[in-house]
C-alpha cells in the first residue's frame, strides 16, 4: 500500500499548480535550443489537436461528438503541459487524476503504472466539475522510462445517478449521483479489461455510449502516443522532458507579467442562484478579487454555506477550474492553456461554503454553481482589464444552461440517456465595439458545436418542431448580447421516456450585463402533455408556432395539458406526441441602451433580432413601424425625455439606500442562504488559504 486511505485524497487536490521542477527537468533546460523549442511546442500542440479531433470523431455521446473534449499531454509528475480544448476548466483540472495515479499507483505493486496501461476516472473530486465528465489516461514509456501521460477528458452524458443525463436535481448526497470512480486501471498490455468495462456499462443507463466513449478516448490516446514517441525519438528524452516543463514555466511567467500590467485594487461581484435543484431558493456566491502586483487573489468569504441535502454545491477545485474559462479565454487568451497559469492566481475558500464542498455532500449541480461564479469573474475581470485593454472587457455569455436531460427507450427500442446539444448555441456577451455573436457557443466550451437537428433526431426519439434564434433571449445595451436559441421538442415513437432540465435563472437572471447593459431574461421550460400538435402537423392546415415567441402567442393553436416549469426540472414521463419548449439564453448587454446607434436597432428590427416593443421602450427609437423610416429628431426627443425622466425619478445614493435597505426577500427564499444579507455573519471565520 502507498498511502491509499479508501477515501478521497484531500492532499492531492491542493496540488493544482505545477509540481516543483525535477533535477532531470532542470538539467535539460541548458540544452534546449529556443528555435527547436518553438518547433517542439507547435508539434506537441498539433498532436493534442489531433487527439481532440479523433476523440470527437469516434465518440458516441452528444457532448463528445460536438466538442466537449479536452485532450492533453502531461508531465510524468502529472502536470498538464499541452492541451487542446475549448473546455478550459479541464486545462487546470485534468492533471489531478494523473497526480492521484502518480501518487498512489506508480509504486503500488497491486496496480502499478506500466507501458500499455490505461486509467479511467470520473469522480468530480479529482476532475472538479461533475461526474458526467469522464477521463481516460495512458502512460507513455520510452526505453522503459515513464516520459509523460496522455489523457482525454470528455463529458459522457449519463452517469447512472437518480436521474438520467448526468445531473441529478434530486440528489441529496453523493450516493445519489451514480458513478464516482477515482482513477482506476481499466486496461493493461494494450488491452481494455472487459470485466471492468462490463461493470461500468452495468452501472449506467446507456451502456453502448459509455463503452464507445471510453474506446474513443483510448484510440485517440494511442494515436497521440505514437506521435509523441516519434517526437521523443527525434528530439531525445532529455529534450522532451525538459520541453514539457519549459512550456509550464513560460506560461506561469507570462501570466504573472500580464497580471502585473493591470490596475491594483479590489474588485467585487456578488452572484445569486435561484434554485437548489428540486425547489427554488436563493444562495450567494460572493467573489472578491484582489489584484496586487503580479498576483490575483480570489476570495469567497461570505458565500452561502454548504447546502445540505441538495446538489447545489461545488468542490473548490471546480470553481478554480471554471475561473480558467475566463482566464484562458479572455485574460490569458494568447497564452497556452495549462495549469502553469495558476502561478499568477491565489485563492481563499471558506471551509464550510457551498463552493468548498466536503464529506458526502452532493455536487451534482456543481456546473451551475461554477458558471454562476464565472459570471462574477467576467464582471470583475472586465472592470480590472478595461483600462489595460478595453477589448478584454466583455459582458458575459449565457450561464443558465437550460439543458434538456433525458433517458428511456428510443425509437429503435434501445436504452439511451444523454442531453441535447443546444447549450453549445448560446449567445456571446456584448463587447465594447460590437454586439455579441448570435448562437455562438458555450463560454465554457468555445470549440463546441450544437449539431444539426437531423443528427440529434436520428437516434433520439425527438422531432424538433423548430430551432432558431429567439429575440427575447439576450440583454439589451449600447451593444446588445448575441441571441440565444429557442427550440421545441416533440417526443415520438416511444412511450417509455423521461425528460427534465438542468439549469438556473427562472426567477433571478443568471447572466448579467456590463457597464449599464441589461441582463438576459429568465429562462423556463414549457411542457405540453397530451398535445394536439402531432395531429395539427398531420393535417397540415393550421399555421403552427415556428419560434419561441409563437409558442407564447395568444393564437398558438396547440392545446393540451400545459405547464410552465422551472428550468431546474426533475425528469418526468413524456409520451409520444408530448412537447417541450425551452430556450438557451443569449449574452449580456454592454453599456447604456440609450447610447445604441439607431441604425443598429433598425437593422435588428428588419431581421427580427429585436422586438418593436424593445425598440420603443428600451432603445427609445422613433420610426414608422410600417415603412421603417427613421425619425432622427423624434428619437433625439425621446432619448432626452428618457434621461430627464431618469433624473426626476432617481434619488441621491444615501436617500435611496435608506429606503432600499428596509427591503428583504421573503424568509422562504432565504432558507438555504445563510444569514441575511451576509451569509456567514455569526459563523466561525475559518479561512482555508492555499499554502504559499
Amino acid at each position, binding site marked *: 500500500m502507498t498511502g491509499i486511505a479508501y477515501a478521497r485524497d484531500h492532499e492531492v487536490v491542493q496540488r493544482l499548480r505545477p509540481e516543483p521542477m525535477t533535477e532531470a527537468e532542470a538539467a535539460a533546460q541548458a540544452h534546449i535550443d529556443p528555435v527547436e523549442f518553438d518547433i517542439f511546442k507547435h508539434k506537441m500542440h498539433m498532436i493534442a489537436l489531433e487527439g481532440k479531433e479523433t476523440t470527437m470523431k469516434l465518440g458516441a455521446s452528444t457532448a463528445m461528438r460536438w466538442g466537449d473534449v479536452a485532450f492533453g499531454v502531461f508531465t510524468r509528475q502529472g502536470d498538464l503541459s499541452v492541451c487542446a480544448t475549448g473546455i478550459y476548466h479541464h486545462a487546470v483540472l485534468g492533471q489531478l487524476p494523473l497526480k492521484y495515479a502518480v501518487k498512489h499507483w506508480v509504486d503500488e505493486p497491486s496496480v502499478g503504472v506500466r507501458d500499455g496501461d490505461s486509467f479511467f476516472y470520473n469522480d468530480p473530486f479529482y476532475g472538479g466539475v461533475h461526474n458526467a465528465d469522464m477521463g481516460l489516461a495512458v502512460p507513455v514509456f520510452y526505453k522503459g522510462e515513464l516520459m509523460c501521460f496522455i489523457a482525454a477528458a470528455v463529458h459522457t452524458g449519463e452517469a447512472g445517478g437518480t436521474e438520467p443525463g448526468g445531473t441529478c436535481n434530486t440528489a441529496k448526497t453523493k450516493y445519489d449521483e451514480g458513478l464516482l470512480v477515482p482513477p482506476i486501471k481499466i486496461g493493461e498490455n494494450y488491452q481494455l479489461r472487459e470485466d471492468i468495462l462490463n461493470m461500468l456499462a452495468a452501472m449506467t443507463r446507456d451502456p453502448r455510449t459509455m463503452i464507445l466513449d471510453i474506446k474513443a478516448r483510448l484510440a485517440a490516446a494511442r494515436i497521440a502516443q505514437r506521435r509523441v514517441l516519434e517526437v521523443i525519438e527525434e528530439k531525445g528524452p532529455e529534450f522532451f522532458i525538459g520541453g514539457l516543463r519549459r512550456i509550464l514555466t513560460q506560461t506561469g511567467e507570462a501570466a504573472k507579467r500580464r497580471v502585473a500590467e493591470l490596475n491594483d485594487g479590489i474588485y467585487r461581484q456578488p452572484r*445569486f442562484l435561484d434554485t437548489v435543484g428540486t425547489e427554488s431558493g436563493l444562495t450567494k456566491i460572493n467573489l472578491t478579487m484582489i489584484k496586487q502586483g503580479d498576483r490575483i487573489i480570489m476570495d469567497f468569504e461570505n458565500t452561502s454555506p454548504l447546502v445540505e441535502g441538495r446538489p447545489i454545491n461545488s468542490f473548490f477545485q471546480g470553481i478554480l477550474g471554471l475561473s480558467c474559462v475566463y482566464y484562458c479565454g479572455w485574460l490569458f487568451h494568447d497564452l497556452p492553456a495549462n495549469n502553469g497559469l495558476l502561478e499568477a492566481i491565489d485563492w481563499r475558500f471558506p471551509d464550510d461554503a457551498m463552493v468548498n464542498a466536503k464529506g458526502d455532500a452532493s455536487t451534482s449541480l456543481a456546473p451551475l454553481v461554477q458558471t454562476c461564479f464565472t459570471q462574477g469573474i467576467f464582471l470583475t475581470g472586465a472592470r480590472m482589464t478595461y483600462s489595460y485593454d478595453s477589448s478584454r472587457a466583455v459582458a458575459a455569455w449565457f450561464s443558465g444552461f437550460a439543458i434538456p436531460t433525458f433517458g428511456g427507450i428510443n425509437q429503435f427500442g434501445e436504452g439511451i440517456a444523454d442531453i441535447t446539444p443546444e447549450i453549445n448555441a448560446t449567445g456571446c456577451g456584448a463587447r465594447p465595439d460590437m454586439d455579441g455573436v448570435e448562437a455562438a457557443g458555450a463560454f465554457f466550451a468555445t470549440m463546441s458545436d450544437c449539431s444539426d437537428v437531423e443528427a440529434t433526431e436520428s437516434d433520439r426519439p425527438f422531432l424538433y418542431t423548430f430551432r432558431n434564434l429567439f429575440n427575447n433571449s439576450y440583454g439589451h445595451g449600447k451593444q446588445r448580447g448575441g441571441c440565444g436559441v429557442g427550440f421545441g421538442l416533440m417526443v415520438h415513437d416511444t412511450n417509455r421516456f423521461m425528460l427534465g432540465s438542468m439549469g438556473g435563472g427562472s426567477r*433571478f437572471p443568471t447572466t*448579467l450585463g456590463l*457597464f449599464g447593459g441589461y441582463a438576459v431574461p429568465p429562462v423556463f421550460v414549457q411542457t405540453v402533455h397530451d398535445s394536439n400538435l402531432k395531429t395539427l402537423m398531420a393535417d397540415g392546415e393550421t399555421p403552427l408556432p415556428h419560434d419561441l415567441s409563437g409558442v407564447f402567442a395568444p393564437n398558438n393553436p396547440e392545446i393540451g395539458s400545459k405547464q410552465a416549469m422551472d428550468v431546474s426540472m426533475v425528469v418526468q414521463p413524456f409520451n409520444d406526441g408530448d412537447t417541450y419548449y425551452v430556450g438557451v439564453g443569449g449574452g449580456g448587454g454592454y453599456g447604456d441602451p440609450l447610447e445604441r446607434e439607431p441604425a443598429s436597432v433598425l437593422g435588428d428590427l428588419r431581421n427580427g433580432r429585436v422586438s418593436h416593443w424593445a425598440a420603443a421602450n428600451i432603445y427609445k427609437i422613433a420610426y414608422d413601424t410600417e415603412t421603417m423610416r427613421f425619425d432622427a429628431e423624434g428619437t433625439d426627443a425621446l432619448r432626452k425625455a428618457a434621461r*430627464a425622466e431618469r*433624473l426626476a425619478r*432617481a434619488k441621491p445614493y444615501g436617500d435611496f439606500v435608506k429606503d432600499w435597505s*428596509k427591503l428583504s426577500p421573503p424568509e422562504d427564499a432565504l432558507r438555504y442562504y445563510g444569514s441575511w*444579507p451576509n451569509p456567514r455573519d455569526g459563523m466561525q471565520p475559518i479561512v482555508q488559504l492555499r499554502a504559499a
Partner: protein
Amino acid sequence: MSKVRITEYLDIDLPTETWRCNRCGHDLGTAHGNYKEGCVVAEQPLEKVHPPLVAEGNYSFTPDSTYCRLVEFYCPGCATMLENEYLPPGHPITHEIELDIAALKRRHGAAA
C-alpha cells in the same frame, strides 16, 4: 492628460483623486470611495426591461421580484446609466471597484 479611463463610463482624475463621468466629466466623488455614492439611483420595475410575454403562470420572461430587483445608477450630470445591479430586494449595493489610487498614480507618473 489628468484623467485615466477606468471603465466605459468612468474616469479617474489623478490630481484631484476623484471619479468622473466619462461622458460629461461630472464629479462622482473621491476615487478612494464607491463612485455609486456620487450617482443618483432608482429602482427600475423589472417588467419595463423584461416584459413577461406570458399572460399567466408562475414563470415568464420577467424576473421574480421577490427574488430579484433592478437598481440603476445614473450620472447626475448627463443621466447616462453608468451601471446597474440585479440584486435581491434590500441586498447592500456593491462597492465593485476599489482601486489602489497611489499605485494608479505611480503607474501613470502622477505626483503622489
